[in-house]
C-alpha cells in the first residue's frame, strides 16, 4: 500500500473519530482517547514525513477527502481499517486494547506493594491493635506514598 495514501487515511480516520466523540453524549475517556489520537497523529505524520504529502485533487482541499474516498484512491478498500480501529473500539467497549501501544508512556508513578510489613490502615487502627496485643506502635511517616514506586 502506498504510504502516502495510508497517511491520509489515518489522518481522516482521526478526524472522523474526533467528530464521533463530539457527537456522542457519553463521557469520553479523555486521557486515553488523547493518547489514541496522539498515536494516530504520530503515525500519520511519520508516514507523511517518509513519503511526502499526498496531492489533493484539483479544487478539492485535503480535509474534504473522506476515509472511504481516500481508500478508494489508494485502492485499499478498508484493508487494515479494522486493525487500526481495534484499539479505539476496545476502549469504547470498556476493555483493554488487544494491541500493545509501544509509544504510550508508562504510568507516572506506578503503585507497588509497600514492602512486606503488615501495615494497619492508619495510626488509630494500629493503636487499637496495640491495646490488644501489647506491642508498641511503629508509625512511619513520609513525603509521598509508601506504595508509590517513587516516594
Amino acid at each position: 500500500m502506498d504510504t502516502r495514501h495510508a497517511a491520509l487515511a489515518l489522518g481522516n480516520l482521526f478526524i472522523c473519530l474526533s467528530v464521533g466523540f463530539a457527537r456522542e453524549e457519553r463521557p469520553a475517556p479523555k486521557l486515553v482517547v488523547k493518547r489514541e489520537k496522539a498515536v494516530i497523529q504520530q503515525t500519520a505524520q511519520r508516514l507523511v514525513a517518509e513519503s511526502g504529502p499526498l496531492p489533493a485533487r484539483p479544487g478539492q482541499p485535503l480535509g474534504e477527502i473522506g476515509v472511504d474516498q481516500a481508500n478508494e484512491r489508494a485502492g485499499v478498500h478498508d484493508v487494515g481499517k479494522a486493525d487500526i480501529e481495534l484499539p479505539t473500539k476496545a476502549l469504547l467497549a470498556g476493555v483493554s486494547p488487544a494491541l500493545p501501544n509501544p509509544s504510550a508512556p508508562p504510568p507516572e508513578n506506578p503503585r507497588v506493594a509497600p514492602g512486606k510489613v503488615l501495615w494497619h490502615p492508619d495510626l488509630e487502627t494500629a493503636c487499637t491493635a496495640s491495646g490488644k496485643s501489647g506491642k508498641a506502635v511503629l508509625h512511619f511517616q513520609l513525603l509521598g506514598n509508601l506504595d508509590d514506586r517513587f516516594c
Partner: protein
Amino acid sequence: MFSDERIAAWINQHFEPAWESVRPVPRVTIDFGDGHVLSRTLNGNIATYVCRSDGAVLDILPGIYEPQTYLRQLDQLLKLHRRVGEDDDPAAALIGYHQRQAEALAGGKLPLAIAAAPLPITKRRIERPLKLALRPEEARRAESNASERTGDAAPRKPTHDRQPLAGWQLLAQDTRINQRVRRLAIHRYLAQQGPVTPADVTRWLYREVLHADLEDPYLGLGKTLFASYPFRDE
C-alpha cells in the same frame, strides 16, 4: 528496607505498624524529548515514631538510617516501651529518658543504651530474628547450614550487598547525623513538651529537624530554586 523479609518479619512480630503520607513528595521531571523522560523525587524525607497504644510518642527516629542501625534503635525503643509501661508514672519516666539522652548526646556521647527489662524464658527465641536481621552473614550461614541439611539452593544475597559503595557511605553519614544531631534536637523537644502524639509534633519535626517545612509549598527549597532564576519576579 521494608521489603526485606527478615526486617519485615521482625517488625511484624514486635510492632503494630502503620504508615502515613504527610504530603506529596516533590518530583523533578526532565523531558529530554523524543519520549525520554527522567523522573526523580526531591527532598523526600521520613520519620519513624514509636508510640504507646494511647498514641503517645515514646521516641522518634528522624530520616533515613542504615538498616542495621535502624533495627538496633527500634530494638532499644522496644525496651523503652516495656520500661515506660512498667513505670508508675510513664510520663515522668519518658521525660527523664529524653533528658538523659539529650545530655549524653550534647556531651558528645552516643545515645545511651536502654537496659533490658527482665525478659521471659523465651528471650533467646524472640531475639533471634532480630539478631539474624542485624547480622546477615550469620543469617546466611544459618540458612546455608539449613540448606545443606535440606538440599535447598543457596539463599539469595541481601539486596543491599549489591548496592554501590558510595551510596552506603552517604547513608552511613546520614545515619550518624540522624543519631547525633537530629535526635539531640528531638530529645530536647520531647523532654520539654512531655507526652505528645505524632500529629502534635509532625510539623515541628519536619520544619526544625528535617528541614522540610510542610507549610511551605516549596518545602523550604524556594531560595535555592529561585536564587539564580532571572524571571523570578515576573
